[in-house]
């Protein structure tokens, strides 16, 4: 019977101690934020999805389309589309597709990028109910008003045209030579045929 009362006393005591702390906490300021009205400041190092960096001098991306980000990605989330344009040095980025549904934000692409053309963004409001919304074209995100055409270097264009012309000429010459050779080959064959015919008769 004494144990029964002792239990009640210790129980009430621990209840009082607990409530004391709860009451103290009740009077402090709330530590939560009312999310849609206020939001948390993001840290500059926060890893959102990757984004292309705009070069302040040219206003373009500095991607050289080497494909190292694509190769280094553990989940194959990145695909870089590029093409050669006349009069532009190197390859031109035409689309940078990031499939964010499979990205794990490990940072291998950012580390692999030699020219520093990609970095983590601070974007986190990405909720959506459609899967297609997470397949980003980062080039379009970088230039929302339309992808600008790369500047054509007239000297380089001239050089390239000359080179192409030369290559064309060379190819034509090669073709001619090949045709001549073919004809030369055919002639002895013809002769052989004739001789055969003679033998038969």
């Amino acid at each position: 019977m004494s144990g029964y009362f002792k239990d009640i006393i210790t129980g009430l005591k621990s209840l009082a101690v607990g409530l004391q702390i709860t009451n103290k906490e009740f009077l402090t300021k709330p530590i939560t934020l009312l999310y849609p009205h206020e939001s948390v400041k993001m840290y500059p190092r926060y890893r959102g999805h990757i984004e292309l960096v705009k070069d302040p001098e040219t206003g373009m991306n500095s991607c050289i389309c080497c494909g190292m980000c694509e190769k280094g990605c553990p989940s194959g989330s990145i695909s870089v589309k590029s093409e050669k344009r006349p009069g532009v040095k190197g390859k031109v980025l035409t689309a940078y597709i990031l499939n964010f549904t499979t990205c794990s934000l490990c940072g291998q692409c950012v580390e692999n990028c030699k020219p520093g053309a990609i970095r983590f963004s601070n974007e986190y409001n990405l909720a959506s109910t459609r899967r297609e919304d997470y397949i980003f074209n980062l080039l379009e995100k970088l230039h929302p008003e339309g992808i600008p055409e790369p500047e054509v270097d007239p000297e380089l264009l001239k050089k390239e045209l000359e080179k192409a012309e030369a290559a064309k000429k060379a190819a034509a010459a090669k073709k001619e030579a090949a045709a001549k050779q073919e004809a030369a080959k055919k002639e002895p064959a013809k002769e052989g045929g004739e001789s055969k015919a003679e033998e038969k008769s």
Partner: protein
Amino acid sequence: MSSLAQSHLRETFELNIGPQHPATHGVLRIKVVMDGEYIDRAEPILGYIHRMHEKMGENRTWNQFWPNMGRLDYLSAMAYNHCYAGLMERAAGIEVPERAEYIRVITAELNRIQSHLLGFGAYIMDLGGFTPLMYAMDEREQILDLLESVTGSRLTYCYFRFGGVYNDIDDDFITGTRAFLKRFRPQIPMYHKLVTGNAILMDRLIGVGPVSAEMCRKYGATGPVLRGSGVNYDIRRNEPYSVYPELDFDIPVYKECDSMARYMVRMDEMVQSCRIIENALNKLPEGPVMAEKVPKALKPPNGDYHYAVEAARGTFSMRTVSDGTNTSYRMRLRSPTYSNVSLFEEASRGMLLSDALAFLGSLDPVIPEMDR
């Protein structure tokens, strides 16, 4: 045992706890044969969240395996990062700058406190008390903010690299960590006052779920489960790695072998982690955070390598066999929760169902890490 169990007219029924049940902390299913309110046999069934992490390690390059390390134990991912970094540095013979090692220890210990805080809050919620979780979350948010400011992510960290860390910590992080320690230290006595001294909690934990040191050895249980059974075993002391030998801390050990002992080990470990962090911040040397000349495509020489760390839930160790190429020939991950939960079947025999759930919570399982 109930009187029914001893009679010849023994009637039992099967009960499935999980795979979706809040008390199992994830997708763990426990098939229980019940004899009234008492457990006859409880069989944990795993594999609901198996993702083949070991196999992934064998068909990805060494660098590409990094993001997987944040997704085993999502609560103490930093320790897992540490293990993989240590393993490959041992394999490839990379010297790590001292500052990087200190940063690793500081972030890993912050992560350990965070993990134990959630373990504490979730455990009390298992037992029916909701408020302590909110207090624990308050402090935990501070740690997550600190770690986010330096690593960029809140839980699934991918911060360590072979030969160092991704980026250096700044003064804001150091002052923030010091401020956090100052704020957090008085909270622990408050938790003890609010929770540990509570009459209901003491009734539910003391003497419940006995796990002897023998049983721990049999099943390979480590971490707070083993230290709650009176065995002083901690990888940080027994097989020191990183800069732990230079730091000053104690290993809390309780001899009671019950759920209360395991709970107390976790609470005391948080205090010790605070000590480690403070110590490491005081000793933090200047210098680079990345070793020089770490090859991009790592190709460790042929061999069999092993590395173990003390994660929040026990010993996590990795073993890899390298055949000199840029992928692993065999990757083996030894996760602590797998061993800790495997003793549940033996220990829970004849236990009340409600006690068994209190016991399972004291093992603090993290299911994605168990299934790997």
